[in-house]
């Protein structure tokens, strides 16, 4: 039986200025899953993520993380197990050097000096930044900062890794690199990955399951291909389907090809479909 990593029941969040950022959110994420929260700007993705490690407190409904209710007495334990990578790395990196940033978490966990150093190096190595450990963060490139931000969370050996827009503003190479790092973590350490993004094209690369969020509500949920090939739903969520899906949808509409299955949402799936069509 799979254990729940994150559970939200009828969660609502209203900002102090009265803005309702989330309403009636229900979700279940299991340990070891790769899940993406997909939605347009302002949908409430960042808000939702911050409810998970208790940075914000839901105004109604319950949030559970690894079986613990997200509230006062459990917060320290939850933050120890949940790594959080913020949208803007300049918020995440607040120490004078990269190294100090990376060991900030482990030090707070009260680990021994050796263990702290070991984890620092290990985390920097995982993101390929071990050569830059003494650099001040403001001298790093954006791609490096993003990886550095991930390292600061990794050093705490989290069971759940939460990433807010990890690929925003990255160049294609940085993008591929990041996807590789995340999947490696998932594979080697069985980390549960929860990513929020408005970039639909990255979703298939870093997730198996998706929640669609729009205007503070979950408007769709399911396996990646099921959800992303559902053009109506995607449009309803104020998003655009992946390019490859749009291409196939148009080919079908024009009668150029016939497809009795779901539209492909990744290049690999598209190639498979084409091979299949060639065979028939």
């Amino acid at each position, binding site marked *: 039986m799979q254990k729940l990593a994150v559970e939200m029941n009828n969660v609502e969040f209203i900002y102090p200025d009265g803005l309702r950022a989330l309403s009636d959110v229900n979700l279940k994420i299991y340990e070891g899953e790769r899940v993406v929260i997909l939605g347009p700007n302002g949908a409430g993705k960042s808000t939702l993520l911050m409810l998970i490690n208790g940075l914000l407190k839901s105004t109604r409904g319950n949030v559970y993380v690894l079986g613990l209710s997200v509230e006062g007495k459990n917060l320290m334990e939850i933050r120890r197990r949940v*790594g959080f990578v913020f949208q803007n790395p*300049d918020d995440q990196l*607040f*120490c*004078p050097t990269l190294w*100090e940033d990376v060991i900030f978490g482990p030090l*707070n966990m009260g680990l021994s000096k050796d263990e702290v150093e070991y984890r620092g190096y290990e985390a920097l190595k995982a993101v390929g930044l071990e050569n830059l450990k003494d650099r001040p963060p*403001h001298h790093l490139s954006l791609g490096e900062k993003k990886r550095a931000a991930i390292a600061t969370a990794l050093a*705490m050996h989290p069971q759940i890794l939460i990433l807010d827009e990890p690929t925003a503003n990255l160049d294609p190479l940085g993008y591929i690199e990041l996807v590789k790092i995340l999947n490696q973590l998932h594979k080697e350490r069985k980390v549960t990955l929860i990513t929020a993004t408005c970039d639909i094209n990255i979703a298939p690369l870093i997730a198996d399951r998706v929640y669609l969020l729009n205007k503070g509500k979950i408007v769709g949920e399911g396996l990646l291909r099921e959800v992303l090939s559902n053009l109506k739903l995607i449009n309803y969520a104020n998003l655009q389907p992946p390019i490859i899906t749009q291409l196939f949808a148009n080919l079908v509409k024009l009668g150029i090809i016939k497809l009795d299955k779901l539209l492909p949402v990744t290049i690999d799936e598209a190639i498979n479909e084409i091979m299949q069509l060639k065979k028939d």
Partner: protein
Amino acid sequence: MIKELLKAFEDLVYLERYPLLNGYLQKIDPRIKLFATAILIIVIVSTLKITPLLLLLITIISFTIVSKIPLKNFLIRVTIFIPIFAGIITLPLPFITPGLILTSFSIAGFSLNLTYEGVYKMILFTFRVWLSIAYLILLILTTKFTNMLYAMRRLKFPQIFIMLTSITYRFIFTFINESYRMILARESRITSKQRRLDIMRDLGNIIGTLFIRAYERGERVYFAMVSRGYSGEIKSINKLKIHVRDVIFLILTILICAVTILLNYLMVI
């Protein structure tokens, strides 16, 4: 204009090249350096004659040279601070100090006497401020920022002070860049000559926005700290050791201080 100012400021604070050089002071333990600078400054401000200060001037010039810091640049940099702080304050001194009159003249019915003692006092005061700042800047130029923080921690500076210094250092560049970008963005949309009032208004807006952003960033940074288990206390590991050269440096500094104090008693001026 503002652009140049910001750039200059950035140059001024981007002092991260020198601490990495392989010079004499760079190798000294930061705790010792901080301590030595503190006693040097105490000696400077309590010295009442110019000759002993000359010894400290020669000392700092030697330190600058052996630390591979460009001397001319260093002297200019220190001197920029002087007119602002000391010059204005000491301007009346030559006239209000009683003593041997050098010349006298009258302005608007007041007669002013320029006295020898007054001029001496002014030079002495300015010189002391100049030297204190010089020693401080030399400390900053030769010490990596993290090591400075470490030294402050070991010398039992208050936690909160250290943390604030650290965060200030980290974000000052970010804010400089941010304001720089905002000013550029403003200028790129200006197509005609601006009235002074408009400039002031825009500047006000930019500063206001900066404050709001700073506030919100503060909140997010706090969140980032809390997410990583921060609970009000900054912890650290460090492995700096005191070496022989550190002790030698300290003894040297104390010796120089002693000689200065001695000269202060023995010398007439």
